[in-house]
């Protein structure tokens, strides 16, 4: 089924051939938020009165690093998709197309910041130094949270849409109190802890959830140091973003009384600049910020999805032309900031990462259900103890049987 009756790209800030943009202007009484873009799809760097200053902080090494990160996570995404197809993962949630939104924003965060992802933020996880193989534990079905968030300040994935947004605001309220206490107890001349902020990710679909509204109200009421990072990838499984909103999502921030910025989510330089600005603003206690990264989920929602049923290949082609990696490669080459050797090394590193992930996934140990008994409560619990005792006794009844099976198959059973 073609989907030409659906607006191809929603209002994209260009004002061209876009009925919704005109509608939004009529509703808002002013032009909808213009999209911040620095690096265009053709690889040329433009100017922005506010954010060029942030982009100018980036040197060649950082830009090459952005490219390497984006290429690595795209390669990882391909490998994980393949692992799912081979039956090694129960499900995979691909991110291809959203690399710039994730690497740009993640690289703008500081180690002391705390990040709440939804479940597609593999690129952000990379920037927080989460072991990508650990990321697969959840999709392998061996853990509901494969890493310790305390190690990286990168929280577990949250699958109940938007449920993590109030957690982020609460965490930010905690930081706010910590900073107040630290300031009150500070001795002159002593180095201060660096100020921190929280960044929380969600998508255009989740933006309709009540928790997003409530968390923005709380954030505004208490001026919490939090950045809301919405990746508008245009599709909530099969429902286009136009069903979630009739105005640019970034414009919703006005209703809460803090800044909202739409940024080209396929422009890693602009995403990084805007996020640095927003996080600095939050850390300084000036206000929360909503960033809407305007991007596109090039692949399926998950490996269980079939995008050909709800959108046209012409739309995908339009967005492929705005590819975040290609445009940065064009820029790096045009400015002589990277050569063939660099790109060859990035590709080799990607293959190495894929091999590591493939091997580690195969080796992931299946946990013992006793760990589930152990982790349901933090403190001793009589019912859990009673059920565990029953389970032990019940399991012990099969001990002889499993020995027999092993003997019968001459040790060849794949256990």
């Amino acid at each position, binding site marked *: 089924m073609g989907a030409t009756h659906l607006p191809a790209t929603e209002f994209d800030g260009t004002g061209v051939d876009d009925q919704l943009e005109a509608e939004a202007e009529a509703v808002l009484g002013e032009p909808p938020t213009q999209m911040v873009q620095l690096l265009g799809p053709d690889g040329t760097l433009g100017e922005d009165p506010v954010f060029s200053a942030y982009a100018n902080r980036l040197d060649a090494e950082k830009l090459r690093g952005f490219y390497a990160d984006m290429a690595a996570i795209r390669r990882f995404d391909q490998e994980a998709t393949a692992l799912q197809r081979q039956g090694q993962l129960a499900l995979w949630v691909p991110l291809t197309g959203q690399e710039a939104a994730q690497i740009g924003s993640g690289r703008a965060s500081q180690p002391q910041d705390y990040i709440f992802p939804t479940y597609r933020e593999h690129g952000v996880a990379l920037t927080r130094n989460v072991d990508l193989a650990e990321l697969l534990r959840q999709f392998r079905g061996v853990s509901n949270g494969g890493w310790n968030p305390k190690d990286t300040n990168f929280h*577990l994935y949250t699958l109940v849409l938007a449920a993590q947004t109030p957690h982020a605001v609460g965490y930010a309220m905690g930081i706010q109190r910590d900073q107040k206490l630290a300031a009150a107890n500070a001795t002159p001349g002593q180095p201060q802890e660096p100020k921190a902020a929280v960044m929380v990710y969600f998508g255009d679909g989740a933006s309709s959830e009540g928790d997003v509204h409530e968390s923005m109200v*709380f954030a505004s009421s208490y001026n919490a140091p939090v950045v809301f990072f919405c990746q508008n990838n245009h599709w909530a499984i099969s429902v286009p973003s136009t069903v979630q909103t009739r105005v640019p999502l970034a414009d919703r921030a006005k209703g809460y009384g803090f800044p909202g910025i739409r940024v080209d989510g396929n422009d890693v330089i602009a995403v990084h600049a805007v996020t640095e600005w927003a996080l600095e603003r939050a850390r300084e206690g000036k206000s929360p910020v909503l960033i809407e990264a305007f991007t596109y989920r090039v692949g399926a929602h998950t490996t269980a999805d079939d995008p050909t049923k709800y959108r046209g290949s012409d739309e995908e082609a339009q967005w492929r032309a705005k590819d975040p990696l290609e445009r940065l490669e064009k820029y790096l080459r045009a400015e002589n900031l990277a050569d063939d050797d660099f790109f060859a090394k990035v590709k080799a590193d990607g293959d190495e990462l894929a091999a590591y992930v493939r091997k580690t996934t195969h080796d992931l140990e299946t946990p013992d259900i006793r760990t*589930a008994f152990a982790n349901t409560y933090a403190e001793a619990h009589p019912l859990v103890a009673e059920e565990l005792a029953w389970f032990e006794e019940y399991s012990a009844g099969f001990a002889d049987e499993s020995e027999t099976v092993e003997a019968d198959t001459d040790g060849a059973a794949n256990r």
Partner: protein
Amino acid sequence: MTTMTIAKAINEGLRATLNNNPRTLLMGEDIGPLGGVYRVTDGLIGEFGADRVVDTPLAESGIIGTAIGLALSGYLPVCEIQFDGFVFPGFNQITTQLAKMHARSNGNLTVPVVIRIPYGGGIGSIEHHSESPEALFAHTAGLRIITPSNPHDAYWMIQQAVDCQDPVIVFEPKRRYWLKGEVDTESPGASADPFKAHVLREGTDATVVAYGPLVPVALAAATAAAEDGHSVEVIDLRSISPIDFDTVTESVKKTGRLVVAHEAPTFGGIGGEIAARVSERAFLSLEAPVIRVGGFHMPYPVAKVEEDYLPDIDRILEALDRAFAY
């Protein structure tokens, strides 16, 4: 020993935990200058300031959700939900997030959030203000649920809830807020373990298990039964999750008969769980089926007829009669 009401005892318990632990904070609707709709937090904002006694926007999911975030950042939030029937906008946060966070993080994260919920009927109020939703939460692993029936327990339980590393819901019997009793603020004494049931009155012929607002009713029923020559043991369950089945089973093995009373509807309720466990643990001691006394399978009725809905002394006596008839 000091005499005070349950509401005052919770107020004093909150004051103690705010004093004892600088990371405790309270959050909820109208808990600041007003002191909460039941005045349970009266005066606390003046003593501890608006950073620790936080008047929140009117949004229950937001309250629970931000409390989870505060707990993750090292704080000990105590949330007030204004009325039982208004907890449901926060139900998602409580059941999918709060209850599961420790498990899904493989034990790496703890979320010691306390949720206070005034519950139960008998106050002649309008709809959504008289409900007993405890079974919905008891069915969710990861949560602990306790309910005081007297001021001494109220004073200590709120502090024990804050000290617990697991999320704890404290169901407060709102129609007993003004019930007075002695509180030992120096020592919890026999109330040191909030998850242990208490035998309030010993008996030999039957056991009545109740909790929260129905504990005084159960005691009165036992007194009335004694006049008819029946010796009835009364247990205050105190903890709804986990349930102290040892104390209940031990009692039933002695008396042979069990009546469980709660305001919540009997279908799918705590009484049914107790009946099933007791039948598994003390089947040969039972002289009669376990009989439940509780609300009917209907939305909580209008105030003018709530007396017909709420278990009272006669309803418990009628259940005891049925048990004795076997």
